[in-house]
């Protein structure tokens, strides 16, 4: 199958892809998007745009992706199942395609309890696996979930998330296999700090041959401080920060934790480059986008290859 996006081309050609992430503003100021995008342009192959992450209302992912396209950046549109039913989802997929968006990351979505509108009614008409299946059916069969024909099928590169550190651990790889079977062509994992556990998970994934059926990209989030490390360890589901890492940040000395956090991120990327079955790094430096160029450069990932369209 011919690649529909730069991200797909790089991965399908066997390269090590790099993606970034951008959280849209809690308002209409497009300038915010432009500023964040400036840091990432040319440093990564594509930029994920979050979809009302943590159930906090932000500028929509589809609109922000369109803005990125205008800035010459390839977006990965994240789409959650929390806020839209299958009618709106399929409609947005058609619209996204019409705007030139070609990468979609299919997610369940954080429960609205965590956001700024906990009294909202949620949707979850579909779950992430059914969403992956929906996009694949739209693309490959040119049909909606209802079975009706689509007048002009959307051609998307389909991605999904994976959570190696959530429970039940033994079941996670089987669920990943379900996502791949449903049509996930690339996977971005939750941020990795516990390399031993991640290696174990990759081993289980390779045992099922998943590394040959999909492109796994490891999630990397540089730690800014001991406080951030502890917060993520205790409050973010699916994120496991080993105590040794927290100790390392503490030992770096006053004011030096951020630098150490970046060093850890770079080391992790370098590990990932060598790990069998890992085809890329997904760098989530949320509200710290300015650090991405440095990380990418020091990890030996520059220049990003140009892709023949």
């Amino acid at each position, binding site marked *: 199958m011919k690649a529909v996006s730069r991200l797909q081309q790089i991965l399908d050609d066997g390269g090590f892809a790099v993606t970034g992430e951008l959280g849209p503003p809690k308002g209409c100021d497009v300038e915010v998007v432009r500023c964040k995008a400036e840091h990432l342009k040319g440093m990564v192959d594509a930029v994920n745009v979050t979809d009302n992450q943590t159930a906090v209302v932000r500028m929509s992912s589809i609109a922000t992706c369109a803005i990125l396209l205008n800035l010459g950046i390839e977006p990965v549109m994240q789409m959650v*199942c*929390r806020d839209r039913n*299958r009618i709106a989802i399929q409609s947005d997929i058609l619209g996204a395609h019409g705007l030139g968006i070609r990468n979609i990351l299919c997610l*369940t*979505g*954080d*429960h609205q*309890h*965590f956001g700024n509108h906990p009294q909202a009614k*949620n949707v*979850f*008409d*579909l*779950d*992430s*696996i*059914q969403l992956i*299946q*929906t996009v694949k059916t739209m693309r490959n069969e040119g049909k909606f*979930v209802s079975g009706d024909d689509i007048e002009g099928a959307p051609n998307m590169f389909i991605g999904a*998330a994976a*959570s190696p550190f*959530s*429970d*039940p651990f033994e*079941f996670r790889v*089987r*669920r990943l*296999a*379900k996502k791949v*079977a*449903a049509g996930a062509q690339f996977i971005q994992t*939750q941020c990795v700090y516990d390399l031993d556990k991640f290696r174990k998970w990759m081993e289980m994934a390779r045992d099922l041959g998943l590394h040959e059926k999909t492109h796994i990209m490891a999630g990397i989030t540089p730690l800014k401080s001991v406080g951030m490390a502890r917060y993520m360890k205790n409050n973010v*589901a*699916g994120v496991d920060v080993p105590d040794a890492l927290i100790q390392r940040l503490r030992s770096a000395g006053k004011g030096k934790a951020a630098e150490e956090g970046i060093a850890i991120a770079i080391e992790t990327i370098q590990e990932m480059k060598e790990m069998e079955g890992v085809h890329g790094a997904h760098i989530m430096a949320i509200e710290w986008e300015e650090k991405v160029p440095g990380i990418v450069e020091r990890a030996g990932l520059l220049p990003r290859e140009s892709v023949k369209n």
Partner: protein
Amino acid sequence: MIVAERKPIAEIRQMLESHRKILVVGCGACVTVCMAGGEREAELMAATLDLVFRNDSKCFSVDCVERQCEPEFLDPLTGKVNANDCVLSMACGVGVQTMAAQFPHVPIYPGLNTHFMGRPLEQGLWSETCAGCGNCILYKTGGICPIARCSKSLLNGPCGGSVNGRCEVDPDNIECAWQLIYDRMKEAGTLDLLDEIMPPKDWSDSAHGGVRRVVREDVML
């Protein structure tokens, strides 16, 4: 059964403020079992309201019926209802509406908030168990309902928010339904069933599809 809970007194007080003679009616079915609106709770409610309105000259009387959701059980109440200015129903939302349909000329106030279909986990603790989705798939998930017991009603769970068998939405109080399903099916040796992708649910059989009815013509008069 249907699980409900007594409304805050302040709210009930506002409802009854302008009335003088109030009949408190309990229900002998679900709300007795979940200790929210049975005969005992109706008595307690009347006693409490007596204290609330102590310096007003209100008059509270109490009765209880087998089930407030069926007109046959409400017929004997007619005299008492007519002798009062209003009724405080201690039944679930179904009972309140049946009372209101039976006695349209008398205000029927809900004394409870109806919550869910569930069961007791221990005395004094009731948990949501069934969502009434209209299309039961319990045989596919080891007898544990993901629609009612997964915070996101996932059919191909769990999501990334499952940690130590708890749901991240409220880890103290909510178990991850998919962890429970996984454990149950692992023990039963039926985990392979979970490798199948469950397709999108047909929600038209649920409350989302519109107001539902069930008919059995063979028993209609």
